[in-house]
């Protein structure tokens, strides 16, 4: 939550921005002045203004990822003063407003830093690893046109609400950026929990968690050591309790998969 009191006076700040031409070049910080800013301006609008000035001079504007600017698409991904998505809780970078900063402040702006998220340019990173994890099992296999009536499977409100809490994840990667191990377990646990809580998700529950975790590991994400920086940085406040659920599901699935009978037709005994 942001502060209740609104300053109406314009402010000026210095931006210390990470500039990096490409994934294989060395990056460095560059300072840019940002003057006379309305406190109701969003952080990204402030970057727009700085970029307009750079473009006017024919200089390369600061590349940053953004799209919906209302905190739901998960594209924006800034580390502001050392914190993924900036100083305020439960919001994305695009929902950070200049009223959160003091006149004369130097604001450090960096990309999300994690080995599985290589820098593409300046403040933009490659987060395609998340898509690969989803492709490994983040779904319920249902062919279009096949399902039964939507009300044929009643789901208690409590379960539906909890599944929705997990499903809120916007796939931004702040959890990874905030974690000293670059763990993606909050992200993975959100999808595993959403689908694992619902009756529709049961047939693939074991294969889903095993495949998603295996892919997560292969992409270079680290493991969870229970510091909970992930949920603190999460713009949708996805709870780290889901990581416990992921661990339980993973353990049960690993155990069951060793003893599961396999049909002779698939090369096993009964």
């Amino acid at each position: 939550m942001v502060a209740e009191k609104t300053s109406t006076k314009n402010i000026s700040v210095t931006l210390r921005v990470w500039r990096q031409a490409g994934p294989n070049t060395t990056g460095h910080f560059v300072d840019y002045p940002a003057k006379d800013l309305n406190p109701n301006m969003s952080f990204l609008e402030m970057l727009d203004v700085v970029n307009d000035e750079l473009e006017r001079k024919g200089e390369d504007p600061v590349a940053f990822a953004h799209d919906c600017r209302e905190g739901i698409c998960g594209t924006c991904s800034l580390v502001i003063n050392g914190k993924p998505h900036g100083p305020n809780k439960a919001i994305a970078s695009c929902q950070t407003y200049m009223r959160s900063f003091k006149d004369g402040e130097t604001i450090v702006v960096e990309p999300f830093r994690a080995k599985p998220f290589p820098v593409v340019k300046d403040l933009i990173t490659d987060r395609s690893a998340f898509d690969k994890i989803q492709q490994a099992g983040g779904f319920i296999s249902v062919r279009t046109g096949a399902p039964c009536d939507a009300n044929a499977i009643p789901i208690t409100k409590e379960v539906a609400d909890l599944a929705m809490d997990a499903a809120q994840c916007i796939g931004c990667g702040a959890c990874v950026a905030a974690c000293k191990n670059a763990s993606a377990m909050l992200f993975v646990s959100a999808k595993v929990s959403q689908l694992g809580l619902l009756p529709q998700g049961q047939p693939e529950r074991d294969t889903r968690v095993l495949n998603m975790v295996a892919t997560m590991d292969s992409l270079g994400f680290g493991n969870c050591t229970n510091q909970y920086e992930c949920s603190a940085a999460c713009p949708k406040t996805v709870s780290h309790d889901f990581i416990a659920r992921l661990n339980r599901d993973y353990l049960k699935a690993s155990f069951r998969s060793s003893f599961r009978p396999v049909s002779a037709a698939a090369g096993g005994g009964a």
Partner: protein
Amino acid sequence: MAQLDSKTPSGPLADKWRKYKTEIKLVNPANKRKYKIIVVGAGLAGSSASATLAELGYQVETFVFHDSPRRAHSIAAQGGINAAKNYQNDGDSVHRLFYDTLKGGDYRAREANVHRLAEVSVNIIDQCVAQGVPFAREYGGLLANRSFGGAQVSRTFYARGQTGQQLLLGAYSALSKMVGQGAVKLHVNSEMLDLVVIGGQAKGIIVRDLVTGEITRHAADAVILATGGYGNVFNLSTYARGSNATAIWRAYKRGACFANPCYTQIHPTCIPVSGDYQSKLTLMSESLRNDGRIWVPKKKEDCDKAPGDIPEDARDYYLERIYPSFGNLAPRDVASRAAKRACDDGRGVGPGKLGVYLDFADAIKRLGEPAVRERYGNLFDIYHEITNENAYKTPMRIYPAVHYTMGGLWVNYDLMSNVPGLFVLGEANFSDHGANRLGASALMQGLADGYFVVPYTIGNYLADIKPGTRPSVDAPEFQAAEKNIKDMTARLLNAKGKAPVNEFHKRLGKLMWDYCGMARTKEGLEKALVEIPKLREEFWADVNVPGSGATLNQALERAGRLADFFELGELMCRDALTREESCGGHFREEYQHPDGECKRDDEKFAHVAAWEFQGAGTTPLRNVEPLNYEFTKMSVRSYK
């Protein structure tokens, strides 16, 4: 002149789609894998189409300009999705959803398309639930519903205030599964810059890799555009900053007709503009109008008072007053204009006096704050983040903003444009919402088109294409299209003027809002048709796009999209000028009833205007597809 045959099947309205499905040509499974289909865009329509076509066995290649398909702007839809399930037992039916949608669109949509949409709406909910979309539920475990504008039944399914997100993630999961299986080849960070037409048929696209700058050619047997709407022509809108018209506009310049470009939706409940630095406007979901009451002070003198200091009898709940049977749930175009009239009358509130109150005090009194928080909590949070005001204590301030475009590329009943082999889905086409879209119907249309319509209709087209006749990307048409794109890129980079791209976008947006926004006049539109080309010339001469085309260059991306917005904005004004009537989102001040409502002219304008490109600098051709209503009477829309 383009041939505009809607190819609507004959027979009774309710049987058309069923009959069509039983009579169309099929492609046998062994042949399906020989056809390649390109899908551009991965919002609800693009993702659902990609996944479903891949399930059927077609080779699918999907292109998105985002870094992941999950970023598409369908994700931002808040309120819900309509479906004629009648789970509430409140008298809903396919026919009623059809009728509400047609009437909501001010009788400017095709009957058969709208009826099909209402029919498949029920399948969408089944599909999404099976995918694990966590829709809101009642304590008994069954699905919950709420009401939306333009309807007197509760048929809207929702997942808190994030319905679009959950539906998109459902479609994204279906797409991800097919990508994981190798059945869909996904190209991210890939922007379509041209359509390749060979022998009159759509056969491929030219794409720029937004990270490396590389321009590549891609051939296919059919091309599907599901690239969304063009509201960013106004600069300030509820669209994502990256939303653009480039794919559909470049297709238009290759011969696809652009239908009803002037039909723009202005959403009544958005957070008002706060300053000239602003880059986007944020929507407050229509669902808020279920419990929020909209008002302004009765007297101008009260406008500067704190809302709590204005007594009940000094407030004008104008929607409830003017439209007693629909009240605060009047359709979007009607509610937007009513807000504008109140502000034009000098009774607006907040800075700049461009705002009206959306007040929850009664709902909180009736239901208690926890219940209101449960229903709308995330929306109240968004409002707080942006305005720093607590809407549980003081009414929200809202004002209309550009939100959706009903116009788009012309398509027939098969969702195919007049360029054979080019299919257009979702907001990118013009087909189902007429001159005004009802709330919670965009999600319905995107998923209907992608899951349940195009998988059938595209087979009907491909069955006549001989497998293995897909052209090579070395064909002269591909070479010419690539050269065209490279030349345009060079021209933008070499302008080396003095002004940044954004500055031109702001100026274009202001022209569009002033002359082609909520209220339009002959005089204003004629002025815009002079001013826009002037500004466009200035843009090409004086824009400064730094850097090169051979690398990630966001200024270049914006410049290319804006170049298209200039041309499209001009076409919107031309369409608005020639449509001498008011209907839905298109309001011409000259054509109104004494009470300020839209005055349609069914004699002259009961048709679709589909504009055909005639070359740069030449006035486009206005083709007409008459709207022949067989089953419904075009009547004066009343919500009173």
